[in-house]
C-alpha cells in the first residue's frame, strides 16, 4: 500500500487540477495534469519499475487500501481490514464481492493468488520487486505462501514475523487470471500482450478507464461510471483525466499560468509568484523524500571515514541551512534521521542534530579532526585538515546528473569542506554510471557479479569518498530502510556495519514489534543511534509544491493528498 499509495498520492497531487463539478451534478470538463519527468514505459505494470508506469495504470485499478493525510487506512478493494493472526504469521485478506473484470466476470481471491504465485513469484516473468515477498528462513531465501480460502478470501503465510508486511499487501493489485493464463511462461508474449498494454480488462476496479496513450505526449483515461467506489455518488466528476507531458518545467508551469492545464508541481523559485495569481492556488506539502551524503566506509574510501568521530566532524561542517534556505528556497527541512517528521514513528528526542547550530560549527569540526590525527596546526592555532601524514586531503564526491538541486547541494558541500582545508572533486555522472561504477561493488580478485552489497570486503570499481543521493522512507513502514543500514542490507553500498543497528532492525521484524508501543521505542532508539553514528549525513527532507486552478474543489492538502482524488470536482460556474 505504501509504495503504491505514495505513487498514487504524488501522482494525484500533480493531477489535481481537474475541472470542477459539483458533487452529484453533471460531469463536465477534463482534469489535466502537467508533467515533465518523462513518459511511462508500459501499462503492463507488473513489468515496470518506474513510478510513472504505476501511476498511469493506477487510474484504472485500485489497490487493496490506501491512507489519508492522518494516516488512517482507507479501504479500497478490501471489504474489511486485513486480519493478522496473533503469532503474526498468517494474514487473512477479504476482498469486496462487487469487483468485476471488463467481461463481467467477478474478481476473485483466485486472481490475487494467481498474480502472486504465478506471475510475481515466477521465474519466467522476473518481477522487479520480488524481494518484497521474500523472507530469510534458516539462511535461505524463500517466498511467502499465498493460498485461496474462498471466492473473496485468501491468506498469506509467513515463516518469520514482520509486522510491517501488512503494508506491502495493501499495495496489491491483481491481474486477470483468465487472460494471464494465455501468456503464462512466455515472457515475450506477455510483454506484448495487447490486453495488458491497453488495459482492456480493468472493469469497475478504478475510477477511470483507459482511452488513449500518445507516447511522449498525453495519457488519457475517461470516466468510469461503473467504478465500485464512486457509482453511488456519481464519482468521478471529471469527464477525462489527462496527463500531458511537457519537455521542461518552464513550459508546463507556463501552461498552468495560461489556464491550459489544471495542475502541475511548482518549482521553489516560482512558488511565490504562483501563489499571488488570482486563479491559481498552491499547496505546500511534506514528502517522505530526503537527500543524503553517504560516507564510504569500504576499503577504497578515505580511511578516516571508518572513524565515527571523523564522520561526526564532517557532518558538523556541512551547513544544512544553506541547503534548505539558499538552494531549496525554504522548501526543505534539515533531516537528522531517516524517518520523516510526519511519520507516527518519528521521535525528536535525543537526536544528534548535526549540520545545524549548535552542532554546525566548523571550528569544532576542525578540532575534532585534529584530535583524531587528521590535521596540522599552524602558528596562529588555525587547523588545516590533512591526512595522518600531513599531506592535504583530496576527496571525491560523486553525484548523478539530471537533478539541479542535487548538483547545487554537491557544490555547497564542497565549499563547506574547502573551508576545513579539504579539496573535494565533484564527479557528475549519469545515474547508470553512478550505480555501476561507484555503488556496486565486488570482492577484489573474485569472480562474483557486482552487487550493491557484496560484503564488507567488497569495493566498487571507482574510488569515492562521498556520494550524494536521494532516498525515501515509507511513512508507515520505515523498516524498509534496513536495506540501507544493516550489515547485510541489500542497498548498503557504503559499507556501514554496526551490530547494535542490526539488532534493532531484527527486533523490528520480530514478534516484539507487533506491539505498537514497543515498535515506537525501537524506532526511537534507531533514530538516536543512527543520528549519532552518522553512517550517512542526513541532509534534508523535501517539501513539494503543487499548483491547481482555483476552481478545483475537494482537495485535502497533506502528505497523502491524492487519496480521495476521485471525489474532486470543478466548482460549478455561477
Amino acid at each position, binding site marked *: 500500500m505504501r*509504495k503504491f499509495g505514495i505513487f498514487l498520492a504524488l501522482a494525484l497531487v500533480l493531477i489535481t487540477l481537474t475541472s470542477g463539478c459539483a458533487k452529484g451534478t453533471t460531469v463536465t470538463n477534463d482534469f489535466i495534469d502537467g508533467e515533465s519527468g518523462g*513518459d511511462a*514505459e*508500459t*501499462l*503492463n505494470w507488473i*513489468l515496470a*519499475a*518506474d*513510478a510513472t508506469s504505476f501511476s498511469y495504470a493506477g487510474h484504472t485499478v485500485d489497490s487493496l487500501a490506501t491512507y489519508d493525510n492522518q494516516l488512517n487506512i482507507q479501504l479500497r478493494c478490501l471489504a474489511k481490514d486485513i486480519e493478522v493472526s496473533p503469532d503474526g504469521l498468517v494474514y487473512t485478506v477479504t476482498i469486496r464481492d462487487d469487483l468485476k473484470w471488463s467481461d463481467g466476470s467477478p474478481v476473485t481471491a483466485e486472481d490475487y493468488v494467481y498474480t502472486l504465485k504465478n506471475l510475481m513469484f515466477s521465474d519466467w516473468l*522476473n518481477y*522487479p*520487486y520480488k*524481494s*518484497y515477498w521474500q523472507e530469510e528462513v534458516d539462511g535461505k531465501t524463500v517466498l511467502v505462501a499465498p493460498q485461496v480460502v474462498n471466492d473473496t478470501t485468501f491468506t498469506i503465510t509467513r515463516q518469520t514475523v514482520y509486522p510491517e508486511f501488512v503494508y506491502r499487501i495493501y499495495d496489491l493489485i491483481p491481474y486477470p487470471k483468465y487472460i494471464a493464463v494465455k501468456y503464462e511462461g512466455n*515472457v*515475450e508474449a506477455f*510483454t*506484448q500482450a495487447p490486453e495488458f*498494454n491497453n488495459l482492456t480488462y480493468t472493469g469497475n476496479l478504478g475510477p477511470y478507464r483507459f482511452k488513449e496513450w*500518445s*507516447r*511522449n*505526449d*498525453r495519457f488519457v483515461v475517461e470516466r468510469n461510471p461503473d467504478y465500485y467506489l464512486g457509482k453511488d455518488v456519481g464519482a468521478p466528476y471529471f469527464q477525462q483525466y489527462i496527463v500531458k*507531458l*511537457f*519537455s521542461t518545467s*518552464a*513550459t*508546463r508551469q*507556463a*501552461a498552468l499560468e*495560461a489556464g*491550459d492545464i489544471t495542475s502541475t508541481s511548482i518549482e521553489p523559485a516560482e512558488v511565490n509568484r504562483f501563489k499571488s495569481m488570482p486563479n491559481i492556488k498552491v499547496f505546500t506539502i511534506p514528502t517522505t523524500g530526503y537527500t543524503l551524503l553517504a560516507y564510504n566506509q569500504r576499503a577504497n574510501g578515505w580511511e578516516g571515514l571508518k572513524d565515527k568521530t571523523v564522520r561526526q566532524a564532517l557532518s558538523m561542517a556541512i551547513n544544512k541551512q544553506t541547503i534548505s534556505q539558499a538552494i531549496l528556497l525554504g522548501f526543505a527541512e534539515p533531516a537528522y534521521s531517516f524517518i520523516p517528521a510526519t511519520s507516527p514513528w518519528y521521535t525528536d528526542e535525543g537526536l544528534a542534530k548535526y549540520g545545524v547550530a549548535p552542532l554546525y560549527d566548523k571550528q569544532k569540526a576542525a578540532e575534532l579532526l585534529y584530535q583524531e590525527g587528521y590535521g596540522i596546526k599552524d602558528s596562529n592555532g588555525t587547523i588545516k585538515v590533512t591526512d595522518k601524514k600531513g599531506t592535504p586531503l583530496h576527496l571525491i564526491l560523486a553525484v548523478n546528473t539530471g537533478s539541479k538541486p542535487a548538483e547545487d547541494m554537491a557544490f555547497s558541500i564542497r565549499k563547506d569542506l574547502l573551508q576545513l582545508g579539504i579539496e573535494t572533486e565533484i564527479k557528475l555522472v549519469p*545515474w*547508470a554510471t553512478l*550505480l555501476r561504477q561507484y*555503488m*556496486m561493488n565486488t570482492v577484489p580478485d573474485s569472480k562474483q*557479479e*557486482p*552487487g*550493491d552489497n557484496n560484503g564488507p570486503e567488497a569495493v566498487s570499481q571507482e574510488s569515492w569518498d562521498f556520494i550524494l543521493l*536521494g*532516498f*525515501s522512507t515509507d511513512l508507515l513502514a520505515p523498516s*524498509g530502510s534496513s*536495506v540501507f543500514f544493516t550489515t547485510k542490507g*541489500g*542497498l548498503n553500498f557504503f559499507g556501514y556495519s554496526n551490530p547494535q543497528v542490526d539488532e534493532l532492525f531484527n527486533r523490528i521484524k520480530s514478534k516484539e514489534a507487533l506491539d505498537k508501543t514497543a515498535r515506537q521505542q525501537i524506532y526511537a532508539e534507531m533514530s538516536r543511534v543512527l543520528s549519532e553514528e552518522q553512517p550517512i549525513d542526513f541532509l534534508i527532507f523535501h517539501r513539494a509544491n503543487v499548483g491547481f486552478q482555483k476552481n478545483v474543489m475537494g482537495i485535502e492538502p497533506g502528505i497523502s493528498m491524492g487519496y480521495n482524488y476521485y471525489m474532486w470536482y470543478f466548482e460549478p460556474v455561477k
Partner: protein
Amino acid sequence: MGKSWLRDYIVKRLIYSIIIAWGILTITFILVRVGPSSPADKYLANITARGGDPAQVTAAIEARYGLDKPIYVQYFNYLGNLFRGNWGWSFGTSMPVIELIKAHWIYSFQLILLSSLFAAILGMLIGIYSAVKQYTKTDYALTFLSFIGISIPNFWLGIMLILVFSVKFGLFKTYYDTTLPLFSLDNLKALVLPVITLGTGMLAGYVRYTRSAMLDNLRKAFVTTARAKGLPERTVIGKHVFRNALLPLVTIIMFDLGSIVFGGAYLTEIIFGIPGLGQISFNAIFANDYPVVIAVTLIGTFMVLLVNLATDISYTYLDPRIRYG
C-alpha cells in the same frame, strides 16, 4: 527516343541504395548494442531506491527483450524480421515500432514540409530580389541578414523565440498541442515559431545560393541577347535567368528536405515539445531502444537516398544533355 539506359540506371541506383541502407543499419545496430549501457539502466534508479537487486533486474529485463542472446543472433533475428515486415517491439514505449512511427511521423512531416516551403519560397524571392538589386543598400542589408540567419544556433533561436513571444508576450503557447486538428488554423499558428526556428537557417542558405546563382546567370550571354531582343526585364529575369538558376537550387532544396529529419528538426522538436520522429528517436537512444533508433535512421536514410535518386532523374529531364553511364 527512349531512355532505356535510364531504367538500367535506376535499377543500379536502387541496388546501390539498398546496400548503403544495409551498411547504415549494421553500423547503427552495432553502435546501439555494443555500448556499455543497457535498457535496464532507466530502471536502476527506482530499483535501487526500493531495495531491489540491480544485477538480477538487469538480467531479467534483458531476457525479456531477447537481449541476452549473442549479438550476431540478435542481428540476424532482427534482419529476418525486417524482411518479413516486422520492425520489432519498442521496449522504451511498449508498442510495435511500426505503430509508433505511424503515430508520430506526421508531426515531423508537417514541420519539415512547412519549414522547407517557407525557406524555399521566401529564400528564392529574397535571393532574386537581392541579385537584381546587386550592390544597392538593400542587397547589402539582405546579405548581412542572411549571414545572421545562417549563424544563429537554431536551438538558441528556438528558446529565444519562446522566451520573447510565448513567455513575455503570450502570443503563442509554450508547448505544442496535439489535440488540434491537423488542417486547422490553430495548428498552423502553433507551428509558426517552430517553422521560423527550423526554417531560418535554411532560408539564409537559399537566399545566398539563389543570389549567387542568379548573378552567375545574369552575366551570361543569353541574357544580353534576350535584352537585345527587347524582352521586358521581368521576362528576362523570371523566364530565362531564373529557370537556369533553378536547377542547382532545386537540388539543394531536395537534399535539405531529405536530410533535415536529423539535425535541425530533431532539436526543434525537442525544444517545442513536438512529438515527431526526432523526439522519438532521441528518447529511444537514451533508453537503448535499438529497434526504434534503427527504424528512424533507416527512414531518414531512405528519404535521403530516394530524394537524391529523384533529383538525379529529374535532371535528365530538365537538362537533356545529361546522361548517366
